[in-house]
């Protein structure tokens, strides 16, 4: 209670001070807020704005997709809570990205480490092109925080998660984003050390998904497993999510949003490469879902619905980095591999005692790593850095040598070190201060009641869910192969 009050005081005073400081100075120092100058200079601006904005809107809807996917995979007693997290991380995160995240990411680079620029989109930033970039980047940033919420579902204190999601969107994400997309050191690996075109990540397998997944991994590790996830001998047990149909709706909405995510990342429809990107995105998702269907069918004896959904997500995450630099067949191969890796990764983390209720770490972190690396293998040298002009991104298979591959691996390592490192320290500090996890009683009662005083489905009771499913569990004789 005490820390909560303090935290809310700090936040509200911050808002107040900022608001006041803005209100005393309503000076318009804008660049081109009406857009007429921009349009006069570039007649393709209208179509490129249309493309980028529509893509940003699709990406925005992914918030709803994540809410459905994560909601469907948790128990009914924690569904209001996961809904609130998805609402809250976006609302606070977008304010954080507006306040400091955006300039940290895209401002003038300080030693390739972080950027500085117009905070709060003030002054110079009041410009149609800057605002355009902001909204597209903002919805990306929102995605990263949301991913972490999945891995930490069903046991994290809301208050703590609220702070975490703010920090991810306002600090951790933008700084790493600066390294790759803001002119930071990872993007300079090519120029400085001759490693391909430097670390490249077309739409964010690393910048978005590995960041979300890495933070989720740190969180899941520090939180520990949900009560009942492991039996007395430490063997994992099933904790079925409360609505498979909700989860599948989430998958379709996410896939839809991904067509904004990947093709939209050209930020220009005049890059006709967008059609190639749309196709690779579709095929990698299909391939991931296809192989997860077949593989779980074989392994578990049944085609597993939510794993098939996760397979789609894994395929999409993996293709996110290479989407613009590979052909259709390569997208299929990348997606197939991602789907297989994901299934094994889910089982691996589960066995290792890391409890990730929705498979966020496997789908985003692990498939994200594979996506970044696949650029170094499959990039076919027909497209450059967000432009049809060379130099072109070329991987091992197309005679690009190992330079690009090495740059990709360095990015993977830097990403994991930065994200996992900082989030681990932050979550650990929060754990020791305001606490990371709800009490045993609260967890058993369900977070809906204890964190929000509200249950998700009051017209439908589900009182026996625990005893009905978890207990009396007798390990299946014939184990999974």
């Amino acid at each position: 209670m005490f820390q909560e009050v303090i935290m809310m005081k700090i936040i509200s005073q911050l808002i107040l001070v900022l608001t006041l400081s803005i209100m005393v100075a309503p000076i318009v120092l804008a660049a081109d807020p009406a857009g007429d100058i921009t349009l006069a200079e570039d007649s393709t601006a209208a179509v490129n704005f249309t493309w980028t904005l529509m893509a940003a809107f699709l990406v925005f809807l992914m918030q709803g997709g994540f809410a459905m996917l994560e909601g469907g995979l948790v128990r009914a007693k924690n569904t209001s809570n996961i809904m609130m997290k998805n609402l809250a991380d976006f609302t606070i995160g977008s304010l954080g990205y507006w306040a400091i995240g955006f300039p940290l990411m895209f401002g003038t680079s300080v030693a390739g480490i972080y950027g500085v620029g117009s905070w709060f989109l003030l002054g110079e930033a009041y410009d149609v092109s800057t605002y355009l970039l902001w909204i597209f980047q903002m919805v990306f940033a929102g995605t990263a925080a949301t991913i972490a919420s999945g891995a930490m579902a069903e046991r994290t204190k809301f208050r703590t998660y609220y702070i975490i999601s703010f920090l991810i969107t306002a600090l951790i994400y933008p700084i790493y984003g600066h390294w790759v997309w803001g002119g930071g050191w990872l993007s300079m690996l090519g120029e400085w050390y001759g490693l391909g075109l430097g670390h490249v990540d077309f739409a964010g397998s690393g910048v978005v998904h590995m960041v979300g997944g890495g933070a989720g991994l740190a969180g899941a590790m520090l939180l520990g497993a949900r009560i009942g996830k492991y039996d007395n001998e430490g063997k994992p047990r099933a904790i079925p999510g409360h609505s498979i149909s909700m989860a599948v709706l989430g998958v379709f909405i996410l896939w839809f949003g991904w067509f904004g995510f990947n093709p939209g990342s050209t930020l220009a429809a005049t890059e006709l490469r967008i059609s190639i990107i749309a196709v690779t995105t579709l095929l990698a998702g299909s391939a991931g879902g296809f192989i997860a269907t077949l593989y779980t069918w074989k392994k578990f004896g049944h085609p597993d619905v939510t794993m098939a959904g996760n397979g789609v997500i894994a395929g999409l995450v993996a293709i996110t980095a290479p989407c613009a630099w590979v052909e259709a067949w390569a997208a299929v191969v990348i997606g197939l591999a991602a789907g297989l890796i994901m299934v094994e990764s889910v089982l691996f983390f589960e066995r290792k005692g890391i409890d990730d209720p929705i498979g966020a770490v496997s789908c985003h972190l692990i498939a994200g790593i594979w996506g970044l690396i696949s650029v170094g293998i499959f990039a076919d040298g027909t497209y450059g850095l967000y432009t049809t002009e060379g130099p072109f991104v070329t991987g091992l298979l197309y005679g690009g040598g190992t330079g690009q591959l090495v740059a990709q691996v360095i990015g993977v390592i830097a990403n994991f070190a930065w994200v996992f490192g900082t989030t681990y320290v932050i979550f650990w500090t929060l754990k020791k201060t305001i606490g990371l996890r709800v009490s045993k009683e609260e967890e058993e009662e369900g977070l809906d009641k204890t964190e929000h005083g509200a249950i998700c489905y009051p017209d439908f009771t589900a009182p026996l869910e625990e005893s009905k499913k978890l207990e009396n569990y007798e390990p299946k004789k014939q184990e999974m192969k």
Partner: protein
Amino acid sequence: MKKIEAIIRGEKLNEVRKALLEADIPGITVYEVRGKGNQKGLELQFRGRPYNVDLLPKTKIELMVSDKNSEKVVELIKETAHTGNVGDGKIMILPMDDLIKIRTGESGDYAI
């Protein structure tokens, strides 16, 4: 008066009811319960992890009958709920001190 309780298979409810209706025994109260006896549980999966629901969905019916009808009702349930497979369930015959019909205030056999 007796109270007859029977735990039966959900699929059998209608057959039982039809037989009772034909025998002019319309009143019934039905519960959704879960039970375990000799029948083995249900094996399910979630994301590849198997789990066992050993309490199976069953239907419980409850009938208030006059002493004279009691045997007939038991007989009817026994016949119609029977499949011969494990899980068919049980019938209990329980004593009742009194019965009152709320609408009319009648009691005893008149309340049925």
